[in-house]
């Protein structure tokens, strides 16, 4: 929220504010006060007119005639296309500015059609317009002042429009990225949740067999293999497993009388924990043991390395 300048502070700076020459924060503070102070509104309006007069002091430099015609043709083509889209009428007048009965602007459109090529300025028309403007300033000075402030503020706004548009564009992009990231993380959470639910099913179902695996050592690795015979899902939860040496990994085996079937490779967490899951249909009588060996990275078709933990299936059979 912009802090409004005090009346005295604002009054000192109204001339500079009309020139849009104050540092941005100061300009905003002055305009915030002006919005609430009729006296300063009138002052700023007066200075705004002074500022606009400075444009008139510039030496006239005509545009190159060919370029002038090009720009004119381009503008008219754009305007014609714009008018066809009907966007102009949709934009409408600004509602929050007081309307003083403008002479010709409210007249029914009985005036002759606008001549297309009329480079001669309507001097007398301009004078009439200026006379009307002066009259209105006299009879409705406060209204004019208020409106002029709106004009100055609007003009200052225009300066910022392109900057604000860029800022908004960046903000929109950031918002979209955040939304996308949220959708991603939501998807990941749902997936993780579904995964956990599936795992819970696989180790708590009525047809789950449990094989306890144990090793030898001071801090003994232990593991439990849950075999859900209904879904053929295998879930092994292990603890106290040391990190395998570089280039080596752990591999899980389902041992049957005829084969040692790989159930996948894994590495434990730094804390020594691991969860390994596999799906494999096996005759319920065939499982003799579950083993974990240390193998080269990527695993082997048959166990070749050191046995880390082993559990006999018959121990788990109830």
């Amino acid at each position, binding site marked *: 929220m912009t802090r409004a300048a005090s009346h005295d502070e604002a009054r000192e700076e109204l001339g500079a504010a009309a020139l849009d020459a104050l540092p941005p924060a100061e300009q905003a503070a002055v305009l915030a006060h002006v919005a609430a102070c009729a006296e300063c509104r009138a002052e700023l309006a007066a200075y705004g007119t002074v500022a606009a007069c400075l444009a008139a*002091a510039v030496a*006239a*430099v005509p545009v190159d005639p060919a370029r002038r015609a090009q*720009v004119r043709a381009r503008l008219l083509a754009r305007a014609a296309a714009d008018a066809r889209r009907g966007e102009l009428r949709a934009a409408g007048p600004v509602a929050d500015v007081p309307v003083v009965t403008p002479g010709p602007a409210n007249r029914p459109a009985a005036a002759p059609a606008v001549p297309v090529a009329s480079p001669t*300025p309507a001097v007398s028309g301009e004078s009439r317009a200026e006379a009307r403007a002066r009259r209105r300033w006299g009879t409705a000075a406060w209204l004019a002042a208020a409106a002029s402030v709106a004009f100055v503020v609007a003009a200052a706004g225009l300066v910022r429009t392109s900057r604000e548009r860029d800022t908004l564009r960046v903000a929109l992009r950031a918002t979209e990225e955040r939304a996308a990231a949220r959708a991603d993380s939501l998807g990941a959470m749902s997936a993780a949740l579904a995964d956990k639910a599936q795992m819970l099913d696989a180790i708590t179902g009525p047809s789950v067999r449990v094989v306890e695996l144990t090793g030898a050592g001071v801090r003994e690795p232990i593991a439990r293999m849950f075999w859900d015979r209904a879904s053929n899902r295998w879930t092994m939860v292990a603890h106290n497993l040391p990190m395998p040496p570089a280039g080596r990994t752990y591999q899980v085996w389902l041992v049957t009388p005829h084969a040692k079937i790989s159930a996948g490779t894994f590495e434990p967490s730094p804390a020594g924990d691991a969860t390994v899951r596999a799906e494999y249909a096996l005759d319920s009588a065939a499982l003799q043991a579950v083993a974990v060996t240390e193998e080269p990275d990527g695993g082997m078709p048959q166990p070749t390395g050191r046995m880390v933990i082993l559990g006999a299936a018959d121990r788990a059979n109830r």
Partner: protein
Amino acid sequence: MDDLELVRRMSEGDERALGVLYDRWVTAVHSIVLRLVGDAAEAEDVVEDVFWQAWRQAGRYEPTRGGVSTWLLTIARSRALDRVRALRRHREETVPLSPTAEDVASGSPTPAGVAELSERAALVTAALQDLPREQREALELAYYGGLSQTEIAERTGQPLGTIKTRMRLAMQKLRGRLTMLGGAGA
């Protein structure tokens, strides 16, 4: 047909009215834009922007806020300063020091036909010339150079407070002188 009527027609989607307004004011708009932007090609671009904005916002023009010329020239300065600042950001260059009021006064006269403007130009030029040099400089750097008070202080090596005082006095004096233009005194 006067400018008010042209703007009204523009607000109703009559692009021929924009053409007439363009023919009438393009030199004045181009002059202030070129003065601020300092580059002919950039200035042409900005001139098109100015009239396009006038077309798009014709429905919001309020006669009580000032004449059509004031409206157009205010748009022109805003668009030109936008361009100056954008170019400055890109090039990291400083804008050349603006010509002084003497340069303004010795420039070519405003085109015949834009009577109101040339009358105003003479008054404004005279009023500017009557300002003490350092006050005029502060005002011109702000209006024509698009510099903030802070930037003017840096450029001139003067304290910010001094620049603020100069600008305030300059605007007060100009306002006093220009009140006779009608509307400037509010």
